[in-house]
C-alpha cells in the first residue's frame, strides 16, 4: 500500500542530496585527487596532471629528514598525553559536577568552563603569551609572594610542555565533559537508591555504581581519540613555540610548515599530507573496530 509513494519519495531524496554531492565533488573529491602531485615533480606550467612523474622520490625525502624520528616521537607523545589528560580531567570534572544538586550553580559552572573551547588558538596564544610572560600575571604573583626569580615558562623545555598540556586541558576539559555528563544522567537512579538503603558511602557509590556504569563511555572516548594521534594540535603549538623548545614540541605539522615556508616544496608537503592521512586512516579503522568491539558503538 505504501510502496509506490515511497518510490516516488526516493526521487525527492536524490534531489535533496544533489547540492551536497555537487559541493563534495567540487570542493573535496576533485581537489583530493590532486594529491597525486605527491608522486610528481611539479611543474607550474604543466599543472598537476601534466607534470612528470617522480615515483616515490617525495616520500623518500620525508624519511630522510634528519629529525624524522624525533618529530614522530614528539607527535605521538604529545597526542597521547593530551588524550589521557583531557579524558581524565573531563571525567573528574563531570563526576564533581554530577555531585552537585543546585541547578543554577551547575548551569553557571558549565557555561563558564565550556567557553574557552570556542575561542581560537590565535587568540588564546596571544592571551597566554601575555599571561605567562615575565611581565605577565603569573610571574607578577610569583614576584609578589616570594623572592623567586620569574619563571621562564616558554623557554624551559619542561615548563613549556606543561604549558602546552595545561592550556590544552584548560581549553577543552569543559567541552569534553559533555559526553560524560550525558552518560552520567542516563544511569538508572534506582541503583543509587538501593545503595543508599544499604548505607553505602558516597565514595562506594562512585566506585561501585557510577564508574562501572560509564566505563563503556570512557573506553569509547579513549578509542575515538586515537584518530587524532598524528595531529598533536598545530594551531596551539605553532602559535606558542620558539626555537628553544623545538626539540620537545616540534610535531609533523609545525616542522612541515617551517620546511615548506622556507622552500615551498609543495609536492613534498602533499606527500607528507598523504602519509599522514594514510596513517590516520589506519588508526581510524582501528579505533572504529575497537569501538565496535569494546564500546559497542558505531559512528558511521
Amino acid at each position, binding site marked *: 500500500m505504501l510502496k509506490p509513494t515511497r518510490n516516488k*519519495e526516493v526521487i525527492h531524496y536524490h534531489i535533496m542530496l544533489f547540492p551536497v554531492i555537487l559541493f563534495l565533488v567540487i570542493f573535496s573529491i576533485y581537489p583530493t585527487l590532486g594529491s597525486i602531485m605527491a608522486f610528481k615533480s611539479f611543474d607550474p606550467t604543466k599543472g598537476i596532471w601534466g607534470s612528470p612523474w617522480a615515483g616515490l622520490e617525495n616520500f623518500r625525502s620525508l624519511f630522510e629528514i634528519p629529525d624524522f624520528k624525533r618529530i614522530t616521537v614528539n607527535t605521538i607523545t604529545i597526542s597521547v598525553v593530551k588524550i589521557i589528560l583531557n579524558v581524565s580531567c573531563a571525567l573528574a570534572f563531570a563526576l564533581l559536577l554530577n555531585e552537585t544538586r543546585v541547578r543554577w550553580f551547575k548551569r553557571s559552572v558549565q557555561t563558564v568552563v565550556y567557553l574557552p573551547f570556542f575561542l581560537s588558538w590565535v587568540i588564546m596564544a596571544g592571551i597566554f603569551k601575555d599571561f605567562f610572560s615575565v611581565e605577565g600575571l603569573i610571574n607578577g604573583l610569583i614576584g609578589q609572594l616570594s623572592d623567586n626569580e620569574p619563571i621562564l615558562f616558554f623557554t624551559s623545555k619542561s615548563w613549556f610542555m606543561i604549558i602546552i598540556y595545561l592550556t590544552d586541558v584548560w581549553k577543552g576539559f569543559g567541552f569534553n565533559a559533555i559526553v560524560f555528563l550525558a552518560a552520567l544522567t542516563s544511569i538508572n537512579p534506582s541503583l543509587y537508591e538501593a545503595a543508599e538503603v544499604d548505607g553505602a558511602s558516597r565514595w562506594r557509590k562512585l566506585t561501585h555504581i557510577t564508574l562501572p556504569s560509564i566505563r563503556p563511555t570512557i573506553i569509547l572516548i579513549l578509542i575515538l581519540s586515537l584518530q587524532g594521534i598524528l595531529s598533536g594540535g598545530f594551531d596551539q603549538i605553532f602559535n606558542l613555540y620558539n626555537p628553544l623548545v623545538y626539540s620537545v614540541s616540534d610535531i609533523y605539522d609545525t616542522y612541515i610548515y617551517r620546511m615548506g615556508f622556507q622552500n615551498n616544496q609543495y609536492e613534498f608537503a602533499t606527500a607528507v599530507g598523504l602519509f599522514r592521512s594514510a596513517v590516520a586512516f589506519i588508526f581510524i579503522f582501528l579505533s572504529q573496530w575497537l569501538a565496535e568491539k569494546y564500546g559497542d558503538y558505531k559512528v558511521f
Partner: protein
Amino acid sequence: MLTIKKTKQDYITDTIIYFILILLAVTTLIPLFNILAVSLSDSAKATAGLVTVYPLGFNMTTYTTIFKDHAILTAIGVSFKRVVLALIVDMVLVVLAAYPLSRSSKVFPFRGVYMWIVVGTMLFGPSMIPMFFTVKDLHLLGTIWALVLPGAVGQFYVILMINYFRSIPMELEESASIDGASPWRRLLQIYLPLSKPIVATIALFVVVNNWNAYYDGLIYSINTDDYPLQTYIQQLVVNLDMSIRDVDQVKSLLTVSNRSLTAAKLVITMVPILLIYPFMQKYFISGIMIGSVKE
C-alpha cells in the same frame, strides 16, 4: 527520589566539591579578565606587568584607536559577512543531506553509497595546493565565497544531524505521510521544528569555526581588504622579521606596538563569540548529546 538525611561528612564533601568547581570556573575566567584588564589599562602600567584582573589607570583609548582603524574595521566586516553566509549555506546543505540519510536503507536504497561519499570525504581531505587551484579556477579568489564555499559541507555536522533525526519518533512522520505530505513538507514542518537543539548546536559550531579560521583568509585573499579578522590578528600576534635594505623601504614601517592595544584587538575578536555563546549554550548540550550518541 528518596530523601536521605545528610551526614556531617556529606556537608564537608559537598563544600569541598563546590569549592573545587568554583575554583575551576575562576581559573577559566582569569586569563580572559586579565586580557580585558590589560586592554583597558594605561599602557605603561600594562607593560610593567602590574595589571591583574582589574584595569590600572583605566582608559578606553585603545578602543577608540581601534574604531578609527580602517584595516581592522574592514576585517571585522569581512568576518561578519563570512559568518552570516556560511551559516545560511552550511545549514541548508546539512539539513538537506541529513534528512534523506536518516532514512533506513530499506526506504532509501542508495543511502549506503551517499553515506560512503560523506564519510570518505571526511576522512580523506584535499591538500592545500590542489584546493587553491580549485578555488582559483572557479574564480572565487578574493571573494567572500572563497571563505564560505570550500568548507560548506560539514560531514561531521551531517552525521550529528542524522543521529538526531533518527531519535525523533517515526510515528510522527508516518502519520504525516499517510496524510500525503511530501518529504519536503515533512522535513520542514515536522523534523526541523523538533530539531532546535541540534540546529542551534551546529549553528554554534559553524559560527565559531568560521569566525576562528585564519589560514584560508591568507591563502584565498586577493587584497588585504579581503582578510577576515583572525587573519588580520594572526599577522599581529605571530610576527617574523623582515629585512630592510633600502632607505625608501623604511618609510612604510610600522609604529611600535603597545601591549594594551594588542590586548584590545584580542578582546574585540572574542566579543562576538562571547555574545552569541550564552544564547546557543542552552541548546547545544542536549544537541550534542543526542547527536553523538547513537542507539
